[in-house]
């Protein structure tokens, strides 16, 4: 399995020395790593700035939703496979983690990791049809997963340890000395997981694995012809995506909500995750954070507007429907005006800003 060997016996022969002029490997310049460190610094400082309410009710769900978005984005934005089953795979992660915690008494990090793996396995199984079917047809597979999984986690009480409310709830958890019931403890815990998985997602998308996915997304017939293992890559995308979603699902229940039933992972959740990546940007890692921020902050902003302008006279139900209308309209607007989402808008704005002084 020596790469050098396989490369050598087919190496292109030099003629005029042009081909064997060994260039120094081109380093793809990325000034982004500086931004990344800055962001990390800001994120690490949040608990000193934000109130406990902000951390618990906004920052934590934001980070988890961004993670879930990343999972779906790897599958849809990078590998081009549509799925409406994100909620279902999140549920698998949550319920599997719960099983490892209660039945096997594993520690929380181990349980969450294994929960993610189980979700990956389930995702892989429902990804198998992608070898034969595409597009709308493939959505059937993900919807089959979504509805079957919702059903399973209601019908079989073993999954929620026979609790009468059919919910799972977090045992008191302390990990690596961080008490996870405190807002700070939760926050750093989640931040750690999100940073690690983001780093991995960036590595994957910039590697041969990521290129294979994008090639399949852009044109799968051509991908097969140039020697990409199309089916293998698609199924891998389903598994990796579901791992991310599974971990996000487990965090959602055990760190954010504290206790939840399968209703937390309904089809509406799948749509929400899909909206995050459309608004944030398909095929963009930072887009997941932008989309998740948007989707977490919009209801707050609307609430604020209705409180200040109408002194709270608009009732909650109507407000919820207004929110729904705005989301729907925004989705259409983004698809028409900026199919690559807010992430692209920001990149464009930044590059315009950076050349702006030069125009004078």
């Amino acid at each position, binding site marked *: 399995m020596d790469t050098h060997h396989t490369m050598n016996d087919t190496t292109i022969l030099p003629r005029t020395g042009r081909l064997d002029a060994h260039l120094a490997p081109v380093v793809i310049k990325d000034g982004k790593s500086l931004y990344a460190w800055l962001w990390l610094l800001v994120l690490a400082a949040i608990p000193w700035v934000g109130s406990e309410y902000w951390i618990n009710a906004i920052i934590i769900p934001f980070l988890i939703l961004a993670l879930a978005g990343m999972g779906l984005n790897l599958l849809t934005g990078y590998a081009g496979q*549509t799925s409406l089953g994100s909620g279902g795979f999140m549920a698998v992660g949550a319920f599997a983690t719960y099983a490892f915690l209660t039945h096997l008494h594993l520690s929380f990090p181990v349980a969450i990791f294994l929960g993610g793996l189980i979700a990956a396995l389930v995702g892989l199984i429902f990804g198998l*049809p992608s070898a*034969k*079917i595409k*597009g*709308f*047809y493939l*959505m*059937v*597979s993900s*919807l*089959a997963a979504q*509805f*079957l999984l*919702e*059903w399973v986690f*209601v*019908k*079989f009480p073993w999954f929620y340890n026979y609790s009468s409310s059919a919910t799972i709830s977090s045992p008191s958890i302390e990990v690596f000395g961080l008490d996870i019931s405190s807002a700070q403890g939760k926050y750093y815990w989640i931040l750690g997981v999100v940073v690690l998985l983001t780093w991995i997602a960036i590595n994957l998308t910039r590697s041969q694995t990521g290129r294979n996915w994008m090639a399949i997304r852009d044109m799968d*017939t*051509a991908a097969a*012809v140039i020697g990409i293992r199309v089916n293998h890559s698609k199924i891998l995308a389903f598994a990796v995506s579901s791992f991310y979603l599974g971990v996000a699902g487990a965090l959602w229940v055990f760190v954010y909500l504290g206790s939840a039933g399968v209703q937390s992972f309904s*089809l509406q959740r799948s*749509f929400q995750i*899909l909206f995050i990546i*459309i608004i944030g940007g398909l095929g963009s890692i930072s887009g997941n954070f932008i989309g998740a921020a948007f989707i977490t902050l919009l209801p707050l902003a609307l609430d604020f507007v209705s409180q200040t302008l109408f002194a709270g006279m608009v009732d909650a*139900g*109507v407000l919820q*429907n*207004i*929110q*729904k*209308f*705005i*989301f*729907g*309209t*925004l*989705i*259409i607007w983004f*698809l*028409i005006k900026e*199919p690559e989402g807010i992430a692209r808008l920001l990149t464009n704005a930044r590059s315009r800003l950076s050349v702006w002084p030069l125009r004078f």
Partner: protein
Amino acid sequence: MLFLETLIGGLLAGTMYSLVAIGFVLIYKASGVFNFAQGSILLFSALLFVTLHEAGVPFVVAILLTILALVLLAILIEKLVLRPLTNRSPMTLFMATLGLSYAIEGIAQGVMGATVHELDLGIDDVPIFIGDLLVSQFDLVAAVTAVILVTVLALLFNQTRIGISLRAVADDTRAALSIGINLNHIWQIVWAVAGMTGLVAGILWGARQGVQFSLSLVVLKALPVLIIGGFTSIGGAIAGGLIVGASENLAEAYIGPAIGGGITGWFAYFLALAFLFIRPAGLFGERAIERV
């Protein structure tokens, strides 16, 4: 006897799926869009109708006003959503209709409220005997309505100018454009007609279970129906609806008890998956050869 009754009950329920699926097929044929908003349009039309009716507007007038609203909605959708998205991928269009469904649901429920409305069409939902078979009278009326609607649609598309233009567009969009067919106009008409099939389905369904949000979820059943019947065939949509309705009912009765029941939520999808592996283009659809 139980088998036959279950089968017939399922088939009658299936006519409703067919009705919803026909709306999908019309839009898919004319504009290549898998219209996820069909369920919301159904909810919108039923909600508008029942709101008008409750406000004292006579039945027929309420129907006519709702149809007028559906036509306006179709024109708006064509101008604001479809036209700017011309030549975009089917997946993008699908996601746009997903957004559309949120927008329509939001505005419909925001304006007309989210409460459950009773709708009494004056048909008793009581079982009657046909020979030895026990059949729901309501289902029977619904099925007859569906049959009438399908016949009307078939006549419309085979005999009228509009229908012929529509078929021309579905067969070869470019050729249709070159002979002067106005595509935007066709889209508006098709979306309005699809909305009307939604109205019929919405009223029938709403009369049974109340006009409420859950009506829009019927869209989720349409996908397996279309996979089984094929996206491009009205006959297929009818057959697909009947197959899904009947097999769902039979599965719930015979397989359900063994595994805890309540399997109608997912059964249709697995049936559709099985179909995909056996007959990928659906029963009546045609599959294109991939050219590279």
